[in-house]
């Protein structure tokens, strides 16, 4: 086998190609230079293709690149051998090389036709130019749209800034107005009430010292006194209602029992005057709330209960507070004149009076003050009533505002 191969590649029985060219220098040089140039070119071309293949693998399938490269290199090698055979007759090796090149060429030829359908589908330069132009046009439109969008955005931002500035100016103006209104309200409170108070007091003194015995004069004085008292109460209630708008909420831990006791102490005189019966069952509940607001709510509701109990009836007022599943409730119930349940919503609105001419001197502001104070506290209120039987207010205190006994004990424990 080895001998057969060696025989196949032996060169002794052949003449170099140069003999055929009669060793003419010009022909030898022509062949030699041409073969070398072709070989070098055929080596450089696949190198370039392989470099392209390495950088742009998406262009053509891998095997086509490799096949074309192998084909060109094989062709190049046949020229290198052609250059050698000018002097060395290695025709056996040349034949084997050509056979290999023939196989690769055949495969490449088949592959090139197989590649044809896909190659034909590749867009032409014209198509690409057209598409490129369309794309450029679309991009231009997009850029114009973006520019318009930017312009709109800038205009919008300017408008927002202007509007914000306007709002800030208005807010500042409102704040100033509010401050001056508050100051105005505060001094109006004093200055409006002062003359009314004097009318009330002096008419009382005048009535007490009146020695004329004229019942008509006494009646006039009583009317002046009553009207001045009513005007003063109305001014006071309107201002109390207005002042809640600027009330600075200062929550503290409050015992509902203690707050109830304070309110009942404050109202000792009016309760005593009516010989009112107070029943208080206030559980030991501590809440985190503004004391002024809590006091206003309780005081107004107890005063209401007294005021709206007919003069001939002894007021029975029940105050009960207890915990519920989701917080606490505070219930204030009386045996007063009650009202038509149809007015259960309206009763909380300012200036609502359901008992005009019934011998009750209300201003219609008490429950409006309660409603506003409760809104500031975050508490809610509901009412049920029956005419001539009584009224029941239920205040609901949300759970998060309750202070647990353990929480309340913490500072003491820390102090120890």
């Amino acid at each position: 086998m080895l001998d057969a191969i060696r025989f196949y590649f032996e060169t002794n029985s052949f003449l170099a190609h140069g003999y055929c060219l009669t060793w003419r220098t010009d022909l030898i040089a022509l062949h030699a230079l041409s073969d070398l140039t072709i070989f070098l070119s055929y080596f450089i071309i696949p190198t370039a293709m392989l470099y392209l293949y390495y950088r742009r693998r998406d262009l053509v399938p891998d095997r086509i690149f490799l096949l074309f490269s192998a084909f060109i290199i094989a062709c190049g090698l046949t020229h290198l051998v052609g250059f050698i055979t000018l002097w060395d007759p290695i025709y056996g090796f040349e034949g084997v090389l050509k056979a290999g090149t023939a196989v690769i060429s055949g495969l490449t030829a088949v592959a090139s036709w197989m590649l044809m359908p896909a190659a034909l589908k590749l867009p032409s330069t014209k198509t690409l130019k057209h598409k490129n132009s369309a794309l450029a046009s679309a991009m231009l439109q997009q850029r114009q749209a973006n520019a318009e969008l930017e312009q709109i955005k800038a205009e919008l931002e300017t408008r927002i800034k202007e509007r914000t500035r306007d709002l800030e100016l208005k807010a500042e103006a409102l704040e100033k107005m509010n401050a001056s209104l508050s100051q105005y309200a505060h001094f109006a409170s004093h200055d409006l009430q002062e003359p009314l108070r004097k009318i009330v007091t002096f008419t009382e003194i005048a009535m007490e010292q009146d020695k004329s015995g004229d019942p008509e004069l006494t009646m006039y004085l009583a009317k002046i006194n009553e009207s001045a008292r009513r005007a003063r109460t109305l001014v006071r209630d309107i201002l109390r209602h207005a002042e809640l708008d600027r009330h600075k909420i200062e929550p503290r831990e409050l015992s509902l029992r203690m707050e109830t006791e304070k309110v009942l102490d404050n109202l000792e005189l009016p309760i005593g005057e009516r010989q009112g019966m107070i029943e208080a069952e206030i559980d030991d509940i501590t809440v985190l709330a503004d004391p002024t607001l809590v006091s206003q709510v309780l005081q107004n509701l107890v005063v209401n209960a007294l005021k709206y109990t007919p003069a001939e009836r002894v007021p029975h007022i029940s105050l009960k507070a207890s915990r519920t599943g989701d917080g606490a409730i505070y219930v204030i119930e009386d045996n007063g004149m009650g009202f038509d349940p149809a007015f259960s919503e309206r009763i909380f609105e300012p200036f609502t009076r359901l008992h005009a001419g019934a011998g009750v001197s209300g201003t219609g502001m008490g429950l409006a003050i309660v409603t506003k104070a409760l809104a500031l506290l975050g508490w809610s209120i509901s009412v049920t009533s029956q005419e001539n039987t009584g009224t029941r207010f239920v205040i609901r205190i949300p759970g998060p505002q309750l202070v647990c006994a353990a929480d309340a004990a913490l500072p003491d424990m820390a102090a120890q």
Partner: protein
Amino acid sequence: MKQVLLIDDDVMEHKLLETFLFRRYGGAFELVWANTVSAAIEILRTRSFDAIFIDRILPPHLGARETFPLLAGHIGSSQVIYISSDTSSYQWQPDSNGVPIQFIDKLDMRDRIMNGLLDA
């Protein structure tokens, strides 16, 4: 005998308080009137009182928060009662440093005096 100081810029308040005190105590009281805080301080330097009535709005001051600190060093053991026609005065209480201060509505002044406001 009740020694009472009234600090109020309105002379009619003097007249009214005098009437109320007379009704409660007959002639057994002495009412001294000062129309400004500084006049009151001058009086308080020389003598003491059982009770001091002070108008809450006393020009040029804007309330108890301004007037109480001025008077605090001169009141001794006097009962301090701020009187006002503005019944929202509870929102204007000064830091009295433990000194008990009362705020009462001027309209209630007569009833409160008749019910023993100064008898404690």
